[in-house]
């Protein structure tokens, strides 16, 4: 299913490659700059944060910070543009917020979970979205917790298993629907294929489904608008795109699914400048660039007269194989369209440029 655009197809150009001496788990652009952060775990079992700056065709290391525990994930989503504090989750279940200018003592620190924090997301910062800045963390102990940096020690929301129920690992979390000060949802994906949508305004479970494969990554196409689309990627090379505008009382949200490759799809990231384009990264070291096309009518009535969503279609714009190891993390630059960074398990971080996105 590749779009027949011929020579006008977007090309993925590998701009810089940097070999690292540690395993990189997450890489993020520092907002409003040409700098990027790599978070990971050194061989000696400590956490590493490295700050690089893009200089022509190479990356220059500006800072290296070492922390006692390996770091799994990080986000800038909940800080203001002036502060640009980094929130990280580490292998021990600690959530920390760091000021990168003075990283010895965290600005905020809490032992949020009993086991590794697998995924973290932030909303309300960077001038995007409305409402209080909040951070959500999902952990292997089966709980999803939402934190407010102004409130110490106690999460503002805790999604935990019912008493006596055996827990499943939460592998991914994402914020969405934050279009005004009250509304917010958290989407969580678990290793048994469950996807759950929690509404933070009503503090209830809004929707859940099971996609038959462990869920590796979920992301809304935009955090700060009325929920539009949600992409969930899973093991076995599948991903699902849910149309989140229309919720049917029993059938939930309409979706279209695509099998991209044989290996796990580790990450999905939407292009900040165009919410219908997203990139998936795979366990075989490949990146696929997709475009979602809306159907003619986004909703229709079913036999009982209830509104039901209609899913559109997904087409592959480009794919490229960069590495033999899984590409575990991916981040688009919010400032420059087409610039992205990806980190793979072959201990390299690559800066890529995707061209011709204007013509898509």
């Amino acid at each position, binding site marked *: 299913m590749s779009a027949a655009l011929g020579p006008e197809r977007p090309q993925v150009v590998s701009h810089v490659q940097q070999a690292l001496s540690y395993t990189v788990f997450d890489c993020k652009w520092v907002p409003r700059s040409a700098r990027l952060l790599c978070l990971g775990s050194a061989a000696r079992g400590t956490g590493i944060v490295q700050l690089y700056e893009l200089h*022509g065709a190479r990356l220059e290391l500006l800072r290296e910070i070492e922390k006692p525990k390996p770091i799994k994930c990080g986000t800038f989503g909940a800080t203001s543009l002036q502060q640009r504090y980094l929130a990280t989750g580490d292998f021990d279940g600690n959530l920390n917020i760091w000021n990168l200018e003075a990283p010895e*003592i965290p600005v905020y620190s809490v032992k949020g979970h009993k086991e590794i924090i697998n995924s973290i997301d932030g909303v309300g910062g960077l001038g995007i979205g409305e409402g209080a800045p909040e951070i959500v963390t999902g952990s292997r102990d089966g709980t999803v917790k939402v934190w407010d940096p102004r409130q110490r020690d106690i999460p*503002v929301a805790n999604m935990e298993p019912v008493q006596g129920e055996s827990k499943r690992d939460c592998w991914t979390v994402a914020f969405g629907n934050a279009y005004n000060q009250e509304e917010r949802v958290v989407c969580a994906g678990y*290793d048994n294929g469950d996807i759950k949508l929690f509404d933070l305004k009503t503090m209830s479970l809004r929707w859940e489904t099971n996609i038959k494969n462990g869920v590796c990554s979920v992301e809304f196409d935009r955090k700060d608008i009325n929920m539009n689309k949600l992409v969930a990627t899973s093991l076995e090379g599948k991903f699902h795109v849910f149309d989140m505008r229309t919720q049917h009382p029993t059938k939930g949200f309409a979706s279209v699914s695509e099998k991209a490759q044989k290996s796990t799809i580790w990450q999905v990231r939407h292009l900040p400048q165009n919410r219908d384009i997203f990139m998936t990264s795979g366990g075989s070291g490949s990146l696929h660039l997709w475009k979602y096309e809306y159907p003619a009518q986004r909703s229709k009535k079913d036999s009982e007269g209830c509104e039901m969503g209609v899913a559109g279609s997904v087409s592959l714009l480009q794919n490229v194989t960069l590495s033999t190891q899984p590409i575990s993390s991916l981040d688009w630059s919010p400032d420059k369209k087409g610039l992205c960074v990806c980190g793979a398990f072959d201990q390299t971080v690559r800066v890529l440029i995707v061209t011709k996105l204007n013509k898509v």
Partner: protein
Amino acid sequence: MPVWLREHSWRQTATAVYLSLPLRGARATPANIFCSEQYLKVSIPPFLFEAVLYAPIDDTNSTAKIGNGNIFFTLYKKEPSMWDSLTLANADKEKLQSLRENAVLKAQEKAKEETEAKKITKQEHKKYALEATMKVEEAERKRIEDMKEKERQKVTKELELWKNQQKDGDKYKSIQKKGELHKEIEPLKERKNETTTKTRIPNEGTSKTRLKSTKGSCSMFSQNLKEEQLPAPRAAATIKVNFTPRVFPTALRESRIAEEEEWLHKQAEARRIINSDLSELEDLKEEEKNPDWLKDKGNKMFAMGDYLGAVNAYNLAVRLNNALPLLYLNRAACHLKLRNLHKAIEDSSKALELLIPPVPDNEKARVKAHVRRGTAFCQLELYTEGLRDYEAALKIDPRNKNIEKDAEKIRHLIQGTMQCS
């Protein structure tokens, strides 16, 4: 005896001989004609015509035309001279024979040379074709590479431009920040003056960080003003979550569902089988008829060191339900302790049989079975079998250091015995 064709006629010029040979109704094909430098033969069984020529001819350029019931030869002479007759006059049998043989040999050599030459030309043609295609492909690749390079350079330039814009923006912001910080430093400076003798803050850069690390929230001052506009933190609440049930602790994969179902099914079946045809069972208490309870009892006795008792418990459990792999596994451990090595091997093997299909759920059990069987083999001095089992265990669980060490030891033992014998 062949029939000789003798009704040939011929004429000659200085450079060529024209020979006409009527065929008397026989059909001729090029294969029937054999010609070498000085010998010409046409053999169409039963007809035969041969001629030992007067002088050598250039047989590569000479031609033979077959048609109208006769063959017309055009033979080009090597040396232009007039021949007295077509064939050599005083040709005795032996000379003829040797001439014929020479002719045949020469013809063969020529044929060989021709094939060689053909091969060489063929190879050269192939090489040439290959090089040509390679050049074309190379050109194509270069074109694509150049296009990509151009894109890259264009994009790199744009990036540099954008980055410089960012830098300028940042500089502007940091100047602003410094301005703000100055305003904040003033009141702090006054406080410091009271306590220290230093009246001058030496370097703005260090003071900034020093202040920051001691105060910890310098720039939070500016934030406090903003906080008024943000809503208060949410009221803490908990949402209870139910998960789609799953027995295995590993992640769900569609491709493994069939295997996992099979394993679960087998386990369920095994638990339901109760061989209750033994009359002695009526004497036993209710709980003693439960294989699980017996298994627990056996485990307890093993822990306490009562290996014979444990074996008894497991035996009874097996009589009741012979499809539970764990019973065999644990009994194998008891037999190892009791040094009933053959029984230990039997039980481990039975356990492994029951642990098919191999799913991650019964990994631990399979590793144990392999290790126990391996130990039994080694104690029986059957080291190669033992090593096989240890390697199987390592394959399932490559990270277990003890198994690795033991496998190494066994390998050394094997090498040691092999060297001695």
